């Protein structure tokens, strides 16, 4: 069997559960004003919910007599004890008046009752004997005079009045019940939606935790594998070097060329492995920077020198544009060089014959929080910085790819037959190295026109103290 909300959903136990007492009191008051008949509304359990009455003269009089008072008490008790299953009951009083007790049903359930009266049925023409004999000391004239003040209603009218009142109460009940259910459903729905969201959040959180674990595993794996690969590779490079240097005897030209190829490819492999190691170190935050003051112009010139031979081979012009007054950068010389070299190599890789590569540096300022945060106008402190610029006239990067090129292992051309090689780690390492220096990187690119990388490195990081 079911329990809980579903059954309360459709049912009410009593009038008082949903009905507004103020509204009920108003209805009873206007009923009394209209017909002059007292009205009382009781809950299913017999509690009085509304009471608008006027003590009748005859009641006042008989209550001054001891037997009269007792008889009156008996009548009231009888009226109160009329049961829910008795239907509409017209209960006579010894004074000749009537009480009409009407059950209130809702959704075929008894939820309360109302009592109208006492009223004198208009059909009654005689003074009842029960009134005149209720007490030995009764003054018949006084009693008859007092009874004359009682409101007189024909039974048929009383029936219609009761019917009308029942309709009004039913309407109030229906509206109240509707409002009651609506608010219950609102609360229940919100609670249910909250529960659902909480469950989803938990699932997402555990998926996130799992991913973090996997990420950690991946980094560990990279570190281990790179390290293990490097050891035999060093031997390969070392032995091929020894062979070319003639330690093991002279090599003919062809042998020398083959061994040189082994050596070159070994070197290339070593640099790839070094990238992997860098990436995993950066991810785990294990990379330490050896910070020293660096001359930005010197850095640019050094990178230009390294790429010029290859640029000449490809027929690409290289320019250097270092502005006056570029400040000194505090950073790790090898790493900053690595950043610029990587971006310059990239520019060279994606620029075709006849193109131009420009490497520049200029003084700039940078904001603590990228300048876009809440209240940044007031809060962000600007600090001197150097902006390096690596500009090419290559193929460019589509706007939807720009955000992703810094992801590890991401390639703009992800196909297995892609034209340009590489592990897809370069830019991810570049970005992390820049961030490790407290700097930032941004890209301006348009497809077919070229790409410019702007690397901003603060003159001195916040935590750096010379």
């Amino acid at each position: 069997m079911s329990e809980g909300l579903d059954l309360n959903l459709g049912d009410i136990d009593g009038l008082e559960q949903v009905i507004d007492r103020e509204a009920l009191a108003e209805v009873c008051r206007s009923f009394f004003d209209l017909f002059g008949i007292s009205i009382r509304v009781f809950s299913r359990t017999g509690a009085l919910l509304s009471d608008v009455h006027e003590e009748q003269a005859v009641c006042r009089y008989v209550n001054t007599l001891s037997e009269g008072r007792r008889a009156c008490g008996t009548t009231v008790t009888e009226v109160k004890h009329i049961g829910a299953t008795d239907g509409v009951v017209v209960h006579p009083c010894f004074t000749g008046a009537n009480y009409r007790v009407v059950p209130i049903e809702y959704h075929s359930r008894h939820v309360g009752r109302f009592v109208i009266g006492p009223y004198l049925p208009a059909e009654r023409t005689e003074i009842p004997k029960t009134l005149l004999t209720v007490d030995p000391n009764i003054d018949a004239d006084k009693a008859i005079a007092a009874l004359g003040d009682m409101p007189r209603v024909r039974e048929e009218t009383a029936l219609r009045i009761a019917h009308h009142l029942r309709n009004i109460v039913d309407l109030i009940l229906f509206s109240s019940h509707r409002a009651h259910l609506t608010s219950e459903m609102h609360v229940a729905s919100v609670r249910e939606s909250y529960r659902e969201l909480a469950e989803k959040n938990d699932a997402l959180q555990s998926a996130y935790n799992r991913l973090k674990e996997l990420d950690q595993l991946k980094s560990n794996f990279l570190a281990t594998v790179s390290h293990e690969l490097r050891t035999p590779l060093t031997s390969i490079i070392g032995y091929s070097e020894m062979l070319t240097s003639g330690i093991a005897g002279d090599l003919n030209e062809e042998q020398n060329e083959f061994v040189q190829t082994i050596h070159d490819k070994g070197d290339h492999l070593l640099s790839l492995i070094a990238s992997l190691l860098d990436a995993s170190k950066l991810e785990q935050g294990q990379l330490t920077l050896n910070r020293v003051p660096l001359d930005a112009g010197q850095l640019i010139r050094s990178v230009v020198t390294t790429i010029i031979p290859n640029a000449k081979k490809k027929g690409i012009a290289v320019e250097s544009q270092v502005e006056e007054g570029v400040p000194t950068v505090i950073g790790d010389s090898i790493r900053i060089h690595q950043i610029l070299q990587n971006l310059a190599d990239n520019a060279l890789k994606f620029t075709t014959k006849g193109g131009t590569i420009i490497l520049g540096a200029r003084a700039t300022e940078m904001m603590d929080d990228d300048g876009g945060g809440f209240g940044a106008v007031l809060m962000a402190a600007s600090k001197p910085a150097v902006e390096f610029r690596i500009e090419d006239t290559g193929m460019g990067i589509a706007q939807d790819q720009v955000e992703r090129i810094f992801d590890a292992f991401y390639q703009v051309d992800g196909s297995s037959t892609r034209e340009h090689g590489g592990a897809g780690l370069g830019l991810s390492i570049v970005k992390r190295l820049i961030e490790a220096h407290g700097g930032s990187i941004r890209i301006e690119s348009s497809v077919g026109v070229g790409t410019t990388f702007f690397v901003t490195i603060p003159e001195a990081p916040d935590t750096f103290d010379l």
Partner: protein
Amino acid sequence: MQVDFTARELTVKLVYYGPALSGKTTNLQAVHELVSEDSKGRLMTLETRDDRTLFFDLLPLTFNSKSGLKVRVKLFTVPGQVIHSATRRLVLQGADGIAFIADSQRSETKANQVAFLDMQKNLRDNGLDPAKTPLVIQFNKRDLPDIRTDVELDALAKRGREPVYKAVAVRGTGVLETLIGLLERSWAQLETEHGLEEKFGLVPEEVLAEVRRQLGAVETEEGPQ
């Protein structure tokens, strides 16, 4: 189902489920129109401004039985729109039987399927076994063009376990048949689970005959499609 011994009444909860705009509320409105004054209560509709059901509709019906126990049947609808999933689950709690109101239009076939899967999920989430929940299926809107044909539906009905009813709820056609069919199935399940005949002297055939009489439905030999 709920039994109140002091009030001598037994309450059965039936839910009209189905995709948005398939005619669940219209079914209840039609039942409300067709049922005699003595048996029905007011139809309560909790709707939004665009006349879509927000939480549910509720139609209480009351039947007397020979045993003296009052049988109250509460018909609920659920809101059809996908976003009201939490409400549907709440309304479905403790359902004794479900009438699935499907839209006969071909274009709505997918929506019917999605709603049916949603119902199964919500039943399970409420700890109810879909396979054991009394279910009837109504194909509504038989008066519209481009609907699945009678031949198709009859063939499908033969393959399925649930009785299939065809209806035009806006005209009241097939509405009482669906309700009575659902009550029959639900009562049979309640009888199996709770032994109503033995415990309360509620003889299934007598109760259902009385329901049919009070619903003003003519008893025919013809069953569902």
